[in-house]
C-alpha cells in the first residue's frame, strides 16, 4: 500500500525582521521604522553565480567536480555542465539550472553571461531592498534599465557583411604593419559606429538596422567565424571545415552556408587533438568484427533499412503495454525446441536477405545473437543512431523508418549507400571508425579526438557552441561588438538615461546600480582575459573610458578585444532570462517543499503545514 501521506514544509525566502502586524485588532497607523529586509533567495543566487565567474570570457578555467560518494571526478568548463553536476537542492538553484538548460538547449552558448548577470543583478535587487525601495519599483526600474540596454544592442549592432569585410582587411597587411593599421581601422570604425548611434537614435525605436538579405559567401563565413570564435579557434576551424564541406555538396546553396541540423559529432578517445577533422556522411565507431563487414561491403552501392527501435524479439513499440500475468500452457509434452528468439532471428534474417539489405541503422540496441548472425551474413548493423541521422538517411535514400525489422517490405528499403572504413583509431580498444554515406547527403560528421578522454566532453561542447554561434550570426545577419564593448555602451546609456527626467526618483538609484553591475561584468571579463591584473585596475580603465566618451570620443576596446563579436540574439536572450530569474526570485517569499513526512531530520528547522 502506498498512500501519499506527505506533508509540506515551508522555508522563508524573504524575511522581514519587522514583526508581523496583526491587522484585525490593531489601531496604529503605519510603521515608523524602515523594515530591514533580508532576501535569502537573492543571496543564494548571488552565491551560486559567484562560483562561475571564471567561466566568463575566452580563457575559461576548467573546474574539477569530485563526487565524494562515487569517487570519480569530472572536468567542466561551462556553466551548464557545472550546474548539471552539482547538487542543488534549493528551489533557487533549481530555477537557475532550469533557466540555464533552456538557454543551452536553444543557443548552446551565452550561459556564462546568463549566470553572471543573474548573480550581479541579484546583488542590485538586494541593495535596492536594503535602501527601502519596494519590489514593484525595483521591477519597473530594472525592466526599464534592461530596455535601455536592449536598445543599445539594437542600435550598435553591425551587419555580418561589415564584420567580414573588416576581417578580410585585417588579414592582408603584414604583421609589422598590422597593429598600426588595425588601430586606425578600429578608430575609424568606432567613429562610424558612434555616428551611427547618434544618427539612429533619432529614428523610431523599431528602426530596422539591416533590411537587405545578406548573401554570404564562404569567404564571408570564415571572417564571421573568426569573429565569433571566442578563443576556441580549433573548434571553430572544424565548424568552418564542416561548413565548406556542406556548401560543396549542396550546390543549390539555399542561402544557408551552415546547416546545423545536418551536423553530427563522433568522439574518439586516444588520438591527439590535431587529428580532429570533418568527414562527409555519418561516421561512427565500430568493433573490429563489424569493420571487417565494412571492408567486405566497401565500394558497392548498398541497400539500407532504418529501424526506429531495438533489434530484438523482446522489443515492442512505445505505448505497447505488456499484460502483467501471462502463463503459457501446453497440452503436448514435447514442444519443438526452437525458442521464440531463435524464430524471430530467423524471420529477421529472412527479411534482410529477401530484400538484400546490407546496412541496418537502428536507434536502439541489437541483441547479441542477432549481431553475430548478421556478421556472418555480411550485414552491417549499427546501433544507437540518432533520430536526426535516421531522418536524413530516410529522405536521401527513400528508406521508410520502421519499428520492427520483420515489418519491412519493398517500399521501406533505401538505396545508394556506400560504406568505408576510415581509420583504426585506437589500438587498445579495438575500435574502428567507419563512414556511411548516402548519395547527395549534406550530413557531415565532426570527428573530435583528444588524447585526454576527460577533455572530450568539453571539446564537443565547444564545437557545438561554435557551430551555433556561427549559425546564429548568419541567421541574425547582425553582430555585436564583443569583449565588453557593448556592455560599456550600456553603462554609458544607463548613465545618460539617469540624467533625463524620471517619473520615480528611485529609478535613478536602480539604474546606477545596474550600471555598476555592468562595470563588474566588464572588469571580470578584462581580468579573466588577462588584460589587467586586478579588478581595481579594470575599474580605473573603464572609468577612464567613460570620461573619454563623455568628452566626445568613441568607446574603444583594448587591443585584444578588437575583432571579437557576440551574437545579438544569444546575448539579448541571456540578459532577458537573467532578469526573469532575478524577478522570479525577488518576488518569491516562500519555498514550499512537498512530500515530506513530519519529523524528518533535514527539515527540522522548518515549518510544517
Amino acid at each position, binding site marked *: 500500500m502506498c498512500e501519499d501521506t506527505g506533508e509540506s514544509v515551508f522555508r522563508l525566502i*524573504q524575511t522581514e525582521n519587522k514583526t508581523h502586524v496583526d491587522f484585525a485588532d490593531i*489601531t496604529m497607523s503605519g510603521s515608523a521604522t524602515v523594515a530591514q529586509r533580508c532576501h535569502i533567495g537573492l543571496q543564494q543566487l548571488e552565491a551560486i553565480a559567484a562560483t562561475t565567474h571564471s567561466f566568463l570570457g575566452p580563457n575559461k578555467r576548467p573546474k574539477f567536480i569530485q563526487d565524494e560518494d562515487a569517487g570519480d571526478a569530472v572536468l567542466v568548463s561551462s556553466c551548464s555542465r557545472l550546474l548539471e553536476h552539482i547538487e542543488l537542492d534549493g528551489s533557487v538553484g533549481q530555477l537557475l539550472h532550469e533557466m540555464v538548460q533552456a538557454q543551452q538547449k536553444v543557443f548552446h552558448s551565452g550561459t556564462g553571461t546568463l549566470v553572471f548577470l543573474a548573480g550581479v543583478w541579484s546583488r542590485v535587487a538586494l541593495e535596492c531592498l536594503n535602501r527601502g525601495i*519596494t519590489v514593484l519599483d525595483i521591477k519597473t526600474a530594472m525592466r526599464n534599465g534592461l530596455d535601455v540596454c536592449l536598445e543599445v544592442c539594437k542600435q550598435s549592432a553591425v551587419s555580418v557583411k561589415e564584420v567580414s569585410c573588416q576581417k578580410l582587411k585585417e588579414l592582408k597587411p603584414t604583421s609589422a604593419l598590422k597593429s598600426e593599421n588595425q588601430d586606425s581601422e578600429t578608430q575609424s570604425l568606432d567613429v562610424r559606429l558612434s555616428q551611427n548611434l547618434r544618427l539612429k537614435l533619432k529614428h523610431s525605436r523599431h528602426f530596422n538596422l539591416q533590411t537587405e538579405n545578406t548573401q554570404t559567401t564562404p569567404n564571408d563565413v570564415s571572417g564571421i567565424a573568426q569573429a565569433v570564435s571566442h578563443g576556441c579557434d580549433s573548434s571553430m576551424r572544424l565548424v568552418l571545415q564542416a561548413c565548406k564541406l556542406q556548401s560543396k555538396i549542396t550546390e543549390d546553396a539555399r542561402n544557408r552556408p551552415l546547416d546545423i541540423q545536418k551536423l553530427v559529432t563522433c568522439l574518439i578517445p586516444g588520438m591527439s587533438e590535431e587529428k580532429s577533422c570533418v568527414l562527409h556522411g555519418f561516421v561512427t565507431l565500430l568493433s573490429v568484427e563489424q569493420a571487417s563487414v565494412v571492408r567486405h561491403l566497401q565500394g558497392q552501392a548498398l541497400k539500407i533499412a532504418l529501424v526506429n527501435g531495438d533489434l530484438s524479439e523482446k522489443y*515492442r513499440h512505445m505505448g505497447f503495454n505488456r499484460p502483467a500475468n501471462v*502463463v503459457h500452457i501446453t497440452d503436448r509434452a514435447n514442444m519443438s525446441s526452437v525458442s521464440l528468439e531463435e524464430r524471430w532471428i530467423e524471420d529477421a534474417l529472412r527479411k534482410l536477405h529477401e530484400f538484400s539489405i546490407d546496412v541496418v541503422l537502428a536507434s536502439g540496441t541489437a541483441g547479441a545473437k542477432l549481431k553475430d548472425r548478421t556478421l556472418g551474413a555480411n550485414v552491417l548493423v549499427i546501433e544507437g543512431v540518432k533520430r536526426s541521422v535516421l531522418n536524413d538517411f530516410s529522405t536521401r535514400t527513400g528508406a521508410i523508418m*520502421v519499428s520492427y525489422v520483420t515489418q519491412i517490405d519493398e517500399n521501406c528499403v533505401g538505396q545508394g549507400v556506400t560504406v568505408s572504413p576510415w581509420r583504426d583509431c585506437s589500438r587498445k580498444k579495438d575500435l574502428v571508425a567507419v563512414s556511411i554515406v548516402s548519395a547527395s547527403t549534406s550530413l557531415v560528421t565532426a570527428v573530435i579526438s583528444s588524447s585526454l578522454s576527460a577533455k572530450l566532453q568539453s571539446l564537443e561542447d565547444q564545437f557545438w557552441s561554435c557551430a551555433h554561434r556561427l549559425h546564429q550570426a548568419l541567421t541574425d545577419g547582425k553582430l555585436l561588438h564583443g569583449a565588453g564593448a557593448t556592455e560599456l555602451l550600456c553603462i554609458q546609456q544607463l548613465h545618460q538615461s539617469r540624467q533625463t527626467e524620471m517619473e*520615480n526618483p528611485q529609478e535613478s538609484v536602480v539604474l546606477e546600480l545596474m550600471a555598476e553591475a555592468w562595470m563588474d561584468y566588464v572588469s571580470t571579463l578584462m581580468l579573466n582575459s588577462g588584460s589587467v591584473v586586478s579588478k581595481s585596475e579594470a575599474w580605473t580603465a573603464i572609468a577612464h573610458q567613460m570620461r573619454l566618451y563623455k568628452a566626445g570620443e568613441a568607446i574603444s576596446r583594448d587591443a585584444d578585444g578588437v575583432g571579437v563579436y557576440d551574437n545579438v540574439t544569444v546575448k539579448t536572450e541571456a540578459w532577458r532570462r537573467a532578469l526573469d530569474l532575478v524577478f522570479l526570485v525577488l518576488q518569491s517569499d516562500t*519555498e514550499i517543499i*512537498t512530500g515530506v513526512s513530519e519529523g524528518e531530520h533535514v527539515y527540522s528547522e522548518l515549518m510544517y*503545514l
Partner: protein
Amino acid sequence: MSRICKKKPAVCTDEPLSNSNICQKMALLRNILSSAYGPTGRLKQIHNNVGGHVLTTSTSTALLKRVDMSGPLLKMISTAVQHHTTCYSDCGLFMGIFTLRLIENTQNNGLRTAAAAKVYKHLVEECNMYLKGDSCGCKVPVDFSSSDSIIALARSMITSKPACMLNSRETKHISSLIAQAFLYSIHCNTSSVSCFGRTVTIGIESQSVSDSSVFPGLLVDVPEMLQPADLERLGSGPFKVVLFSVSLSGDISEVGDVTLEIHRGVDPEHDLLQQLLKLGEQVVMDKVSLFACQKVVHPVLQHYLRKHGVVVIERLGLALMEPFVQLTGAQAIASLCASVPVEAFGMVKEFCLQSCGSRELLQLLPSKDAAVSTMLLCHRNETMLEELKMTCKRAEHVLRLTLREPCALLGGGCTETLLATHITHMSCSKASEIAQALSISHSEFIMAVKAFCSSLQSVALSLDHDGQDCLIDMTYAHRWVPDIYSKTCSCGLVEDRSNLEKTPLNTAYPTFCPVSLKNTDSQPRILDSFSAKLNALNVAVEMANLVLDVKYVIEDIN
C-alpha cells in the same frame, strides 16, 4: 504468511481550535495565502524533496493542489477553495483569506461560536442582498457590445498574477488574445446560445510572448512521418475523419490484472495486428483521409495507412478528444472489432501547417460552424509559461461566467472596503432589533459584526506587500494607497480631490453610509468576477461556521 499488527487507537483532539499547533498551522496557511494576494503578491516556489521541477506561482489553484495539508481542518478548507476555483476560476485566495480571518477573529474576540455563526449567516445574506440589488455601489455592468470591458476584465485577471511576468505591452497583447479566444468560443448562429465552444491552450517555451496568438480550429503536433508533400497530395478538402478512443497499439493490456493463460502456438499479438490491419483496410475503403486516435497506433497499421495516403494522428490525449469531436463532428470509436458506422465519420475542411519557433503544428479547420479555437501561448521559460497558461484559461472561463451575469465587481480591494462599510452601517443602525431577532445579546452582535467586517477589510489590506499604508475615504468608502502619481482610488473609479477625507484602513473610524458615485465618466481599471466573488463570500462564511463548530477531531492513524 501475514503478520498481524495491533491496531493503534484513534487519536481524538478535543476543541481543535484551542490547540496551539493547529492554530499555528492555520495562521501559516493564512500567511501563505494573503502574502500571495494581488498584483504585487509574493510568489511561492513549490518543489518536491527530491529536486523536481520548481513551480513558481501565486495562484491558489496551483498552490493548494500541490501542497499537502496535515490536519483535517486545513484539508477541508483547502478542498473547499479548490472546489470553488474549479467552478468559478477566480477569487480562490479571497475565499481562503476571508475564511481563515473569520475563524481567527472569532477566536481572538472570544465570541460564542453559535452566536457568531448566526450573525455571520445573517450578514452574508445582507451582503447578497446588497450585491445583487440595484443600488449596489460596487457593481458595474459589463457591456458585451464593446471589447473594452471584456479586455479590462481579462487584464485584471492577468495583472493579479505576477508570476506570469508580463510587461505592460505583453499584458495588453495577452488580454486581447483572451478576449479573441472568448469570442471564438461563441457560436455564430444564435439558435444554440446555451453551449459554448472550446478553447484549447497550448504552450511553447523559449519564444517571445508577442508570438502568442489565437487560431481558429485545432492545432496538433505534426505527426512524425508527415511530409508537406503528403498534404499536397491530398488536394483540397473537406476530408473524411475517423476517430478512435481505444488504444490501437495492438497490446492486450486492457484485460486488466487477471492472469492470462495463453496456449502455446497461439500468438495473440499477431492476431490482434491482423485485426488492426483489417480495420485499416476498411478505413481505406471508406475513403478516410484523417485517422486520429487518442492513444497509440501500431506502427505497422500506421505504415499501412500512410501507404494509402491516410494522415495518421496518434496520441491525441484525453484533453483534446472533446474539442476534436466538436470540431469534426466525428464520434469516438471505443472498439476495434466492429466496422465503423457511417454516422461516426466526421469532417475536416482543411489542413494547414503552422510553425512557431522550433515547433511544427498541424492546423485542422472545421467544416461546419464549430466554435473551436486554439490559444498558442509562448513564454521565455517553463515556470512562467505554466502560470500564464493557467491564468489565461481561468480568465477565459471568467469571461464566460460573466456572459451569464453581465456585471463585474470593482477590483483593487474597493469592493471589500465598500461592502464592509455598508454592512457596518446597516447593522449598527438596526443593531438592537437584529440582535433580538437572532436572540443574542447586543454586544455580542456588535462584536460579531466587527469581526466580520474587519475580516473583509483584512482581505483589502492583504493587497499590499511593501509596508505601505492602506487608506479608505470617508465618502465613497473606496480603497486608496498613498501614491503621488496616482490620482484615483485602487479600482480607478473615484478621482481624488483635496477635500476627500481619508483614514488608514486598519484604524477605528466612525461608521458612515457610503455615497454611491453617480454620473461619473471614469471607468474602473480593475474588475473582479461578480459570480466568483459572490460564491466565494458565501462559501467562505459557511466554511468558517463549519470549522468553528467542530468540537472533536478524530483521526484514524493506522
